[in-house]
């Protein structure tokens, strides 16, 4: 095991070169709906149980199914109302199970990125070859069903190996060159993009995804009341908007159609979106567009700046 992930260097949140978003926007806002498939009876992983209850885990399985049967449409209509295209963190087996959902998102020109094949198949314990196969399969599946070259990755159920980001970037390159596999959502260390060190040397970037704004973390782990979650989103935005006057920031709201779309939670989310989109100078965009903009305009400058700030590190 390593002392640190080694993907990025220390980069203090002061005296950074200015990041400029299109049209002088202060904040790049992206909403990342996780559209997931959980299996009722997945094969056992030696390092993590898929369900806390013995088979059949009716409660856990069925609320997640609620997201696809009921919640998805609700959330999609809401995002559409506020002119937001989702960046979907996709369990790619959903292309086979629920192609109707994929079609609806395709029609709206939403982005699809890989969240593994199933959210009940963990990376833990996989050989490098197995993980590479799984990631390749997910990128190929997205291409086959949507025509999109998968740019981003969020490991299934946030289960990682030491090679996850390398393998994702390499699988993207093998399939589509530099058009695929160039950003990750797996790291939570910053409010601005970060160049990532990979063994291949590929130009690759970490895009802030925010566990703190993630509805499942808020509702299930932190057990936050719905209206307070709405207020937290507004507060998060206010500060990033303020700081974005100096240098462009990123705000991400990761959602799940079985959490935010429940009848007692959607109102708070809607009020937050209404508030945010009522501001000018907000770039409402997708994860891929942010990553591409950063790679095209800022990656080299920022890399040089980071290098100047780690001099003397041991």
């Amino acid at each position: 095991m390593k002392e640190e992930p080694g993907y990025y260097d220390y980069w203090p949140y002061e005296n950074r070169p200015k990041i400029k978003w299109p049209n002088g926007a202060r904040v790049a806002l992206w909403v990342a709906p996780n559209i997931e498939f959980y299996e009722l009876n997945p094969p056992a992983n030696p390092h993590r149980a898929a369900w806390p209850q013995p088979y059949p885990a009716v409660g856990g399985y069925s609320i997640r199914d609620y997201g696809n049967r009921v919640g998805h449409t609700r959330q999609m209509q809401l995002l559409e109302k506020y002119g937001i295209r989702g960046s979907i963190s996709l369990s790619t087996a959903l292309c086979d199970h629920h192609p109707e959902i994929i079609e609806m998102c395709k029609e709206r020109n939403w982005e699809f990125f890989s969240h593994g094949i199933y959210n009940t198949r963990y990376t833990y314990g996989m050989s490098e070859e197995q993980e590479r196969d799984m990631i390749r399969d997910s990128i190929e599946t997205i291409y086959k069903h949507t025509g999109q070259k998968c740019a981003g990755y969020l490991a299934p159920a946030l289960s990682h190996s030491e090679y996850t980001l390398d393998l994702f970037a390499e699988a993207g390159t093998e399939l589509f060159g530099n058009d695929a596999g160039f950003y990750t959502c797996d790291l939570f260390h910053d409010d601005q993009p970060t160049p990532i060190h990979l063994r291949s040397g590929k130009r690759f970037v970490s895009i802030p995804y925010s566990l703190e704004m993630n509805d499942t973390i808020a509702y299930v782990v932190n057990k936050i009341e719905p209206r307070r979650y709405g207020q937290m989103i507004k507060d998060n935005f206010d500060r990033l908007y303020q700081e974005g006057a100096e240098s462009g920031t990123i705000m991400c709201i990761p959602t799940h159609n079985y959490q935010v779309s429940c009848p007692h939670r959607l109102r708070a989310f809607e009020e937050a979106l209404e508030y945010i989109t009522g501001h000018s100078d907000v770039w409402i965009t997708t994860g891929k567009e942010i990553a591409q903009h950063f790679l095209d305009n800022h990656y080299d400058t920022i890399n040089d700046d980071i290098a100047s700030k780690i001099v003397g590190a041991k």
Partner: protein
Amino acid sequence: MALDKEYLEYSKRQYGMDHDRYSWSMLEDRPKVNWPDGKSLALWVNVSLQYFPLDQKGIPFKVPGGMTMPYPDLRHYSLRDYGNRVGIYRFFKAFDRFGIKPTIAMNTRLAEKYPYLLKKVVERGDEIICHGYHMDALHHDGLAEGEEAELVSKSLDRLRELSGQKVEGWLSPARNESSITPELLKQNNVRYFCDWVNDDMPYSFNTENGPLVAMPLSNELDDQFILMNNLHSEQSYVEQIEDSCDLLIKEAETSGGRILALNIHPWLLGQPHRIAKLEALLEKLTSNPKVWSASASDILNAFENQ
């Protein structure tokens, strides 16, 4: 290091679900449902009347809300019993005051032990559904062959006999099922069950003995989930239900009738410091002319008569 080959095989990666219990269907694509008298929202108030035995076995897990301390856990036994002695009578008063037609999910053991309470429910004319034998009689695959079959038939037969009702609904203790619970329910003439939370409307659920109906009893809006699991305030509980009501009524305008299902526990909301919140909530819900207060089987009948 590597995982078994099976871990990267996906035998159920196909159209629809990864099991054959029900068909894949998105709510938005289904025909609109119309409730009686042009109402938008069916209000299903489901009271869980529960018996938590002091000699809890906790197999395969300790039921949430049950005993947690070394035997004899008098605090939890008596605090749950409070609901059956005191809280439920506060509920009845509130239901009568606001014209609520509740559904009573009762542990059969409770019906055996407290005939006064059972008689009260029967005389009120409330629909009774079976909530299993008691809260420590969990349905799970670890039961020996025939043991669960006996548990299901005992629970239903005795409750039917004692109540004189046909008892056509079922809610498993802790909503926990074995892999054959639905088969056993169908075999015992259960019409609908309320354990699965994957929909906002009823749907058909396959068993080897024929179809059951899965009725959408929200767990997310359950008072035990909000107040005890999430530790939200009583005020937030009320707000969450009000926000749900508003959303579902609005959705009904374009997509057809909806259901607001509130599972409540007299040992929680029947406490003196909480009952006023429930009353205020029921007053608000029932003052909306678009709300139809109905029992679970009323709702299912209306749904099936479309």
